[in-house]
């Protein structure tokens, strides 16, 4: 649509421009991109990364020898493998390993170590470990496979 109305002064011309400009808005894709950026920035870390963040340990033994068996065990409890990837795994088999990283990442690790650690029980709640007011301040002994750079790869709770 065009208009033939001609402004008679500079003020008229600017008023006309001001009126026409009010219909201009930022394209909607900008808002979508910004909200996606916001979501990425404020994403809640997964239970795996939250757990990995609280783990400290002492070295038990080089872990290379247990790698193959561990990877086989991981298939059972690897939480990212099933359709319900965000849910914590069941804790029925406490001698099995729970993956803290994707299986592919674990399989690629060339110099893993087995370490022993004490994990706050409350940090294990997301895995399905029972936490009560009575035991919330306790720790649980865990064995963990750690990458050469210190990244926790997998965890098991033999004494639970």
């Amino acid at each position, binding site marked *: 649509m065009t208009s033939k109305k001609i402004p008679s002064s500079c003020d008229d011309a600017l008023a006309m421009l001001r009126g026409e400009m*009010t219909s201009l808005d930022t394209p909607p894709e900008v808002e979508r991109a910004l909200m996606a950026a916001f979501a990425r920035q404020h994403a809640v870390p997964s239970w795996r990364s939250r757990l990995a963040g609280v783990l400290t340990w002492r070295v038990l033994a080089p872990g290379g020898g247990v790698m193959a068996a561990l990877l086989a065990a991981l298939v059972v409890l690897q939480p990212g493998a099933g359709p319900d990837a965000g849910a914590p795994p069941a804790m029925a088999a406490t001698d099995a390993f729970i993956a803290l990283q994707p299986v592919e990442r674990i399989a690629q690790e060339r110099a893993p170590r087995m370490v022993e650690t004490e994990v706050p029980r409350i940090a294990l709640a997301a895995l399905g470990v029972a936490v009560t007011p009575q035991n919330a301040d306790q720790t649980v002994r865990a064995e963990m496979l750690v990458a050469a750079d210190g990244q926790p790869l997998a965890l098991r709770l033999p004494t639970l």
Partner: protein
Amino acid sequence: MTLPDHDLLRALRAGDATAFQALYRRHQGPLFRYAVLRSGSRETAADTVQEVFIGLLNGSLKFDPLRGELRHFLFGVARKLILKQELARGLAPHSPPDDANADDDGEWQEAPCMAHEPLVRMLDNEAAEQVRQALAGLPPHYRDMVILYEMYDLSYGEIAAICQIELGTVRSRLSRARAALVARLQPMMRVA
């Protein structure tokens, strides 16, 4: 109830997505329109708005509410971003340095600096589009004055803060900018 900007900013920093969205929706329109008029390009304007809000989101922009309104702060950031692009593209060769308060007697003063897409039609209204193009033909430091004073009704003080120049410089640039714009609009107004 409409929350003030600083409450929304606080909520945004605490991770409230609705606060970020409300802040964006409140300011995107005026900011986009400023950037369109300032840069002469919808694409540049959209990129600028996005960059400004990303800066708010990731904390790289530090807004101090004691130093003025958020809206003016956002205009100032957008202006800097556009200026940076213009300089990078060699599109503002006649502008004074960004922080200059020099009198408008420099050799750059009468040399119009074309926005990089001034002739790309943006408005349906033919007369309004001609006015926009006349404005786009002004040197950037004059364009700023006309846009902020005439289109946004900002005070000399607010414009001085946004453009980081002295009050007197705002006054003299605005006067020259209006004169330059009137000259550009004359052919159009003679038809009236």
